[in-house]
């Protein structure tokens, strides 16, 4: 007998296959990607027949035709024969549509065991299924199971072990039975269904339908939708943000301060300290600050999904989302984007097609995130006075407009020819299983830390080191962060002329240098601008060393402070509805600078270096340019390096063009630059168009996946 070592679980979405997978594998899981594609791959192992077998959770699919990336992956895996056994989980409450996948599977392999899931719910819904008959008709072993119930899973494992003994020989050819077309399969299914299933209750008045009648009612739908979206945002961003400072402080302590102190204690050379504590350490700290929002976002998504409301969100939001070329389900990533782009990019994975996922990720960074707000606040307080609120509102609006424009543009270039559609199964409502939701959020967080984290740490490392190394009077030195002698400042100065068309003069180089530190996180612009204007003030000879943080390691103090921020944050999140933090925008300069940690003198510098128009152009640029490194890391994880690169170049070019166009039309009145920005717009469009064409020819060049012939 062929030894079973590798098993794949196949099933339609919401069939409960992931629940089964969780209960089988327990803690032994890892999340990754299928080779060559950006489809999530969840692997684990469990004991079967005295050995540990590998288990993989295939993407949920309704059939195996290569229409979507998920289906292609499932097809390839099953036809490839890598797995010794396919466990096909089917939902007893939705038998006929679940059996279609079973038919598709049967065309490709004999090694199938069917697990009939949710037999308890089916009973409640009044569906009686003759399991033995189903097994005979399908010519496959069928084992009833309630995947949420551990005892039931345990029993099923014993039955699986038994059923394996009776599977046809592993190397027997797939039957000579002709491959049926869709209608043929369904008429076969209908025959089977009429023999094995009995509906003894009218299901039109079941719980799910009653809830749907309210949730998707013409009047109640929108209010319920808005409230649930507010709660989601509050949960993912509001509650998640409470812990950001905590992770920032603790991360700083563990990855930066302690290594630094240790290295200094063994009197390591300064360059080593800079590399390890200032480079890698700061990189790890950056990743750590995103841990809470990413975790809470996956938690929120998991709860909505498990509850069954996620599908309804898609239905209600589809009406307006389709106008920008996306399905309704893309609404959540977009809304989360107003809090933080990183979880927004990751939330895009809930969409079914590659096109929708990628378009959402391209658009998400234009939703102005919370980290950009302190920058707006600083400049508004310095220049806009009573018009601050209006200015910020306009920036958010421009972001929204740019997202829509991006959608429109991508639809006609990079993703040309693939239309958006929206067909969605509405699963039964049920109580979320908190344990499972927590676990899946934890797994996804871990995979973010591992896979996006690496690139973030690497990029932060390079930037930090460049920010620290300084060159003055023929000597290199370290510790020049946010000073005018760091390499980064030289680069910023050198590249300065690029920003001239948007109204940043050569003398205003701190503004262009800050754009580089903004890559760590956009709010870092505030700190850099603040520090650089201040040092710029002091004449060359009496330049003071950049203020170093008070020496000595204070572990106890840092930990206390970290916990204090959580307490304060919790009070804030439960007492205020200002989740975006828009309260920051005010005319009172002292309040703003206190909140964002800038000196009040910075306002005079900003006022001296910027006009109202060039400041607005600068803010437009900050809104749109190169998303922060953590977003790039997340985008690379979700789309691969190529598309993440395209996104970065696209957004930066667009930012330059928009900022330049605005500044020149409003104040600069330089016809050449106006023309140049217009040419840039066309150029960006043409470039994407070209990439789209290339992409298409690439697709046809790839050999089709091997298909096992059904007729031998």
């Amino acid at each position, binding site marked *: 007998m062929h030894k079973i070592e590798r098993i794949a679980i196949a099933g339609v979405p919401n069939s409960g296959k992931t629940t089964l997978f969780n209960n089988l594998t327990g803690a032994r899981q890892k999340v990754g990607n299928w080779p060559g594609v950006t489809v999530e791959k969840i692997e684990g192992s469990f004991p079967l027949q005295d050995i540990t077998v590998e288990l993989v959770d295939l993407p949920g699919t*309704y*059939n195996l*035709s290569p*229409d979507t990336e998920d289906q292609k992956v499932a097809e390839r895996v099953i036809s490839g024969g890598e797995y010794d056994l396919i466990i096909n989980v089917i939902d007893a*409450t*939705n*038998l*006929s*549509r679940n059996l*279609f996948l079973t038919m598709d599977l049967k065309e490709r392999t004999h090694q199938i065991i069917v697990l009939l899931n949710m037999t308890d719910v089916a009973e409640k819904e009044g*569906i009686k299924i003759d399991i033995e008959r189903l097994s005979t008709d399908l010519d496959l072993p069928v084992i009833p199971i309630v995947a949420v119930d551990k005892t039931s899973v345990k029993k099923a494992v014993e039955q699986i072990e038994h059923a394996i003994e009776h599977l046809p020989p592993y190397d027997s050819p797939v039957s000579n039975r002709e491959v049926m077309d*869709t*209608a043929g399969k*369904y*008429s076969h299914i*209908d025959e089977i269904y009429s023999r094995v299933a009995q*509906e003894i209750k009218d*299901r*039109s008045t079941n719980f*799910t*339908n009653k809830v*749907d*009648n309210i949730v*998707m*009612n*013409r*009047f109640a*739908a929108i209010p319920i939708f808005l409230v649930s979206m507010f709660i989601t945002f509050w949960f993912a961003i509001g509650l998640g943000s409470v812990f950001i400072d905590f992770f920032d402080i603790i991360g700083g302590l563990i990855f930066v301060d302690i290594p630094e102190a240790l290295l200094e204690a063994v009197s390591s050379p300064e360059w080593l300290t800079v590399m390890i504590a200032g480079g890698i350490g700061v990189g790890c700290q950056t990743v750590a600050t995103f841990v809470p929002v990413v975790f809470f976002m996956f938690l929120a998504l998991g709860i909505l999904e498990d509850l069954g409301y996620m*599908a309804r969100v*898609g*239905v*209600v939001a*589809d*009406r307006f989302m*389709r106008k920008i070329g996306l399905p*309704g389900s893309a609404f959540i990533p977009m809304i989360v984007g107003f809090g933080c782009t990183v979880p927004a990019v990751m939330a895009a994975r809930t969409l079914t097609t590659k096109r929708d996922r990628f378009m959402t990720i391209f658009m998400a960074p234009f939703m102005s995130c919370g980290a950009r707000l302190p920058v707006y606040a600083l400049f508004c307080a310095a220049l806009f006075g009573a018009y601050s609120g209006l200015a910020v509102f306009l920036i958010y609006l421009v972001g929204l407009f740019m997202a829509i424009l991006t959608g429109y543009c991508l639809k006609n270039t990079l993703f040309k020819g693939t*239309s958006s*559609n*929206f*067909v*969605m*199964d*509405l699963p039964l409502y049920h109580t979320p299983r908190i344990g499972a939701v927590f676990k899946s959020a934890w797994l996804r967080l871990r995979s973010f830390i591992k896979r996006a984290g690496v690139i973030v740490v690497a990029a932060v490392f390079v930037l930090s080191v460049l920010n620290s190394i300084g060159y003055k009077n023929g000597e290199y030195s370290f510790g020049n962060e946010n000073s005018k002698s760091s390499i980064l400042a030289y680069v910023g100065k050198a590249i300065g002329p690029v920003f001239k068309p948007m109204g940043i003069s050569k003398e205003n180089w701190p503004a262009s240098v800050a754009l580089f530190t903004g890559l760590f996180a956009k709010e870092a612009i505030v700190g850099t601008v603040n520090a650089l204007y201040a040092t710029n003030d002091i004449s060359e000879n009496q330049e003071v060393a950049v203020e170093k943080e008070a020496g000595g390691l204070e572990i106890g103090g840092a930990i206390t402070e970290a916990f204090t921020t959580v307490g304060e944050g919790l009070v804030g999140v439960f007492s205020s509805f200002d989740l975006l933090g828009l309260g920051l925008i005010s005319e009172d300069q002292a309040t703003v600078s206190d909140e964002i940690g800038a000196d009040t003198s910075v306002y005079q510098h900003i006022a001296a270096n910027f006009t109202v128009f060039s400041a607005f152009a600068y803010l437009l640029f900050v809104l749109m340019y190169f998303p922060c490194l953590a977003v790039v890391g997340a985008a690379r994880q979700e789309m691969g390096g190529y598309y993440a690169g395209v996104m970065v170049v696209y957004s930066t070019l667009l930012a330059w063009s928009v900022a330049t166009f605005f500044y020149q039309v409003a104040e600069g009145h330089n016809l050449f630059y106006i023309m140049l920005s217009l040419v840039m717009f066309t150029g960006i469009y043409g470039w994407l168009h070209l990439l789209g064409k290339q992409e298409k020819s690439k697709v046809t060049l790839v050999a089709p996946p091997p298909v096992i012939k059904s007729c031998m």
Partner: protein
Amino acid sequence: MNKNITLANIKNGRSYEVEGFNPGNSAYAEKLSKMGFVKGTPVELAQVKITDPIVVQIRGSRIALRKNEAKGILVKEL
């Protein structure tokens, strides 16, 4: 006398049966048929007051789809 209409035009409270693809609008019909919209399958509008996407009851489950996609499927009233 039962003139075929598309799935996009079905009315609340009546019963229909899938007839086939709409030749004029079949881009998405192939995929829908794999989801269970094949000839002879009973289908009706779910008692949900959202008009686009529509929600239909088919094969014991509820599927939401845009009117545009629903146009790809022809049905007849029973």
